[in-house]
């Protein structure tokens, strides 16, 4: 499931930092790697996880691959947080209306 993959991808600090780097503008892998003390293959591995989780997208420009945050995917995560409260207050509505009906019946 894409959502689970996105959450797993976000669980790692390096990947969150990469995401912040490519939030505003697209950057090639080399430039991203230069921000970290990790090896290029390690960064490449993190980029793969971000791509597979759809948090980041990539496009080819000549010989370079340019990475950029996929803001829509992140907006969906935020929507998921809203869904948490949607579910909770939907339960509250059902329970409170049931309680009210029972009270009226007793009157």
């Amino acid at each position, binding site marked *: 499931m894409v*959502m689970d993959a*996105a*959450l797993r991808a*976000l*669980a790692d*600090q390096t990947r*969150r*930092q990469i*995401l*912040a780097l490519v*939030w*505003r503008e697209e950057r090639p892998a080399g430039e991203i790697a230069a921000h970290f003390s990790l090896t290029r293959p390690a960064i490449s591995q993190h980029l793969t996880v971000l791509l597979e989780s759809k948090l980041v997208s990539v496009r080819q420009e000549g010989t370079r691959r340019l990475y950029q945050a996929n*803001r*829509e995917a*992140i*907006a969906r*995560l*935020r929507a*998921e*947080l*809203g869904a*948490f*409260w*949607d*579910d*909770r*207050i*939907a*339960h*509250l*509505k*059902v*329970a*409170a*209306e049931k*309680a*009210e009906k029972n*009270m009226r019946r007793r009157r």
Partner: protein
Amino acid sequence: MSTGRVIIERTLFIAAAPETVFRFLVDPALMAQWIGLSHKLGPAPGGTFRVEVSRGNVAVGVFTEVTPHRRVAFTWGWESADAALASLKPGTSLVTIELEAKDEGTLLRLRHSGLPEDLERIHGDRWSHYLSRLVQAVPPSGHLASSHREKAKEQKA
């Protein structure tokens, strides 16, 4: 996409008096009908708010306001064996629930604010932690409330 603060706001009409709805916000047995597996509530300013939202993941805070039949507010953070979830300490965010009498029922307004700020300024930590951990704390299926969940969805559809 908006770059403002992450604030969740929801409004819902409930066909029950504010007095009835209010009891579901302060009475542990009634709260169990809509959120959490176990509860410790001290519904007065400074009182404990402690709700085990899912197994081992406890939302912890204090009540900051309790105005009978009108308004309840409490801070919200996590206690959990999960280190990342636990990094979101009590007091990190604020949940406010307002009740307003309307058309022989109640208009409920929920606002979850103080969530990590500007998405443009994420430096990898608080914001994404918050979202991912909060979502993970409430598994989408295989949970006690799953049958209720489905019902709620059908009603919305």
